[in-house]
């Protein structure tokens, strides 16, 4: 019964969007992080989503009718960190430079809104499936 499958599919969506929100929170929290070492500076992290084909699902002509979503991994942004000359900074390197994270706050904010919307949509799908199943249970009463 594929109505129950909606819970799995939308649930995987909720999980993926939660991870996306977490990375966004981490990025925003570290937006002003600085480091004197270019290799150790915080870089914006973004999850990579991938459709999850449910091969066990034989509904509707054995096609993978319902595919959830999973987070394949987290990638770090390749944008260059911001280099500023602050010789009096305690973390400055020997040339007097500090490097701050490459987080783009505006990009993160829009990412957060998008994740928020997707999360709400998945919740709505779960609620709809639940309502319909409850009506099926009371069929004939």
């Amino acid at each position, binding site marked *: 019964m594929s109505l129950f499958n909606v819970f799995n599919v939308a649930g995987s969506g909720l999980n993926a969007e939660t991870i996306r929100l977490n990375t966004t929170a981490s990025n925003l929290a570290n937006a002003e992080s600085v480091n004197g070492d270019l290799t150790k500076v915080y870089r914006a992290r973004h999850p990579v*989503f991938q459709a999850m084909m449910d091969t066990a699902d034989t509904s*509707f002509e054995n096609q993978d009718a319902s595919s959830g979503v999973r987070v394949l991994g987290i990638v770090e942004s390749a944008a260059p960190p911001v280099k500023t000359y602050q010789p009096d900074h305690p973390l400055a390197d020997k040339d007097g430079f500090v490097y701050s994270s490459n987080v783009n706050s505006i990009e993160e904010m829009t990412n957060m809104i998008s994740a928020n919307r997707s999360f709400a949509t998945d919740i709505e799908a779960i609620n709809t499936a639940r309502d319909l199943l409850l*009506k099926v249970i009371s069929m004939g009463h």
Partner: protein
Amino acid sequence: MFNNIFGIHEQALMLHGERLGVLAANLANADTPGYKARDIDFAAVLSQTDGATALPLQLTHAAHITFSDGELPSGELKYRNPYQASLDGNTVEMPVEQAAFSENNVRYQASLNFINLTIADLTLAITG
């Protein structure tokens, strides 16, 4: 007499249930790069059963069993044509999917209502 008391609504209900799952998958993958939105061609699948005759039977494998009454006719998932393709190859368009989802929801409840009314009619006939 009781072979087909619910008419087409029995199949329609199951098909709407399947479609709900497919549309939920589209919604869940709204941010997945390269994901292609899919849908069930409802009219094409349901036209294979007119509610009165026996369902068409397709055996493509030796292990296939025959359809019993009330099972879904065969059909294929179709890929949706996006109005505007996005750069990451994802063809899920949120408003389209949400509209299809709520439409499917209404149709599901309509079929359910018809079935409930049929049950109520039969109950009335039995109890008098």
